């Protein structure tokens, strides 16, 4: 059961975008920005409030890659595997992160909820390939060593 505050926050977000079917995606984006994931209960609630079926809401939420029904870590690391980054060797960076954090293709988030590691198709900083994004900051010219040093730094910050 989610705390009442979750519903109050959701109400605020719904008010901001208006109670209409077209508001579904921005509402879900804001909920996810707030809680770093999309709690299923809230999606059901939103569907009812904006007048669409629960099935419709889930069909949209599962279509887009950005929505996650699982809680993400405090630091969401997106390793870019766009063409430019790929040919400048982005995979070793991803593999180093996976190894260090005990993650894999199937397991994206560490058990202590500190790190989520994902890949992304392009961050738009191709000139500095390979790149990766930690929350909203883009880090240029990555190497496995730099990635591991960054993890150490973030761990230090807590």
């Amino acid at each position, binding site marked *: 059961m989610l705390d009442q505050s979750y519903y109050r926050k959701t109400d605020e977000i719904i008010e901001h975008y208006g109670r209409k*079917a*077209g*508001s*579904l*995606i*921005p509402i*879900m*984006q804001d909920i996810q920005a707030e809680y770093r994931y999309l709690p299923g209960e809230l999606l059901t609630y939103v569907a009812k409030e904006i007048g669409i079926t629960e099935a419709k809401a889930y*069909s*949209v939420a599962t*279509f*887009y*890659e*950005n*929505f996650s029904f699982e809680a993400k870590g405090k630091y969401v690391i*997106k390793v870019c*595997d*766009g*063409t*430019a*980054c*790929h*040919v*400048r060797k982005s995979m070793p960076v991803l593999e180093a992160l996976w190894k260090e954090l005990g993650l894999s293709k199937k397991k994206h988030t560490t058990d202590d909820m500190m790190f989520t590691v994902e890949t*992304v*198709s*392009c*961050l*738009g*900083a*191709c*000139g*500095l*390939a390979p*790149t990766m*994004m930690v929350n*909203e*900051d*883009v*880090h*240029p010219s990555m190497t496995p060593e730099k990635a591991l040093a960054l993890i150490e730094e973030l761990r230090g910050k807590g």
Partner: protein
Amino acid sequence: MIKNKDELLQVRKEAQEQVAAYDCRILVCSGTGCIATGSAKIYDEFVKLTKDTPGVVLDFAPHDEGEHEHVGVKKTGCQGFCELGPLVRIQKGDEVIQYVKVQIADCQEIFESTVLKNEVVDRLLYSKKDVHYKHPEDIPFMAKQTRIVLENCGRVDAESLDEYIAAGGFEALTKAMFDMTRADVIDEVDRSGLRGRGGGGFPCGRKWKQVARQPEKVRYVVCNGDEGDPGAFMDGSVMEGDPFKLIEGMMIAGYAVESTDGYIYVRAEYPMSVARLRHAIAQLEERGLLGDNILGTDFCFHLHINRGAGAFVCGEGSALTASIEGNRGMPRVKPPRTVEKGLWEKPTVLNNVETYANVPKIILQGADWYRTIGTEGSPGTKTFSLTGSIENTGLIEVPMGSTLREIIFDIGGGLKDGAEFKAVQIGGPSGGCLTEKHLDEPLDFDSVKKFNAIVGSGGMVVMDTNTCMVEVARFFMSFTQRESCGKCVPCREGTKRMLEILEKIVAGKGELEDLDRLEELANMIRTMALCGLGKSAPLPVISTLNTFRDEYVEHIVDHKCRAKVCKAMRRFVINPEYCKGCGKCAKNCPVGAITGVRKECYHIDPKLCIKCEACKDNCAFDAVYIEE
């Protein structure tokens, strides 16, 4: 509030006086690339230096006659040379000095030498073969470009409406609104020959015309900023570098087709584009340039931003409008086309960011002027993001019809570290690879199609001989397979089967018949998929199969990857000169592929070896190597 045309002229006059009153402007590149290398801190440092220096003022009123130096610190759009960031330009009147790779520690020196005196800091200039280049326009990377869309990037403050107006902003809109009829505007765009810059190359004016003649009076203007091609960042650079120009282009479209609402769909991975656009829209609304009765006329235009949510297919028109409506972003069968039934089933002008950004200049200088640039069939310029194995990576703009040789060797400076050119991939996952023999072909919408590639949105990834073309084909296929929305069978199932075959070949288990199967599948998808993205999904495979068939055959028959990229093809060998016969590798080998006698050279059985690298990683004497 800017209530009418005269007031806008007044604002422009004041804004120009204000800009001219600066003794010096420090222009800090604030594109995604330079922000990533730390330009935000450089900006803060310059603001601090300016504030802390006696006799220098940062903010001042126009007509300020005080006895002090007026220094402005501005955040500009992408200055282009991303790899050498953070980039800083120091502008005094017409003289602009370009500094590259500026660090926090350099700011003080730049400030004291260049800003306060007129001394150049040589070590921060761009240099090549012992030549130092002082002005941005002298650098070969910049000198050969023609900047229309990116004109303001690097010159004006990307966050300031006043600076945009001072640089001639909204002159085109007022010309359209006050001196031209709606039909004139559409006609001018039509005659200019401007074609959709998102990749399709559909004539923009024809689209506008079709929307304008619909009986339905509620119309929408939509901008496709869902730049999903990996390796492309031109549209992102325009949205964050010159948001006002894009908006002005959309407003002109809105005026021309009598639309009152516009939508910009920005991909989720571009938070800065969203922030800059929001900031721009807020300023325009506050000043009355967006909203009801713009400049005292009956033209009303409201602009909304929709953020994407990570679906590549939303770059397709009907999927994009579905996504704005709050649905799954899936393409639909056409006709009806977007111009007849687009967003919310209403006639919709849907163009890409770069297309709109071309419009103000076309209106202002005319279609005839525009046609002097580029080629007969594809007038104007095209922006490209130049990346991969190239000396100068960055954002460029060249006339249509430029050759690959000009782009890669003259502007791009050739391959990185003198590597050997192999291919250039253009058009992303919908495009193909061009090679040596295409270097002198003029690049425009029609010519490139002949080589099974597309100009696309403008991603250009240069590859050297260390790139395996089979692996590149597999990479793109895995991308399109992952991004296939699943609505039509040819794309959903076809890309999956193609990917399986490519994975098989890369793993060294391919058969020659696989190549025929690949071609058959490719042709099926190309003709039968529902949307443009599906139809073009097999292009990377088709074009590599055409040009690099021998590499595919090598992988299959000889189990050899000449670029030494495919792990399964590599052959691990122990060098008898270095091997001390300690046996550590044999102990570490998980499949028992290494045998030998102590104190003598060990041997790896290639048939058993799974290429895990455990032997190579743990050898104390570096005796294990990958055979050339």
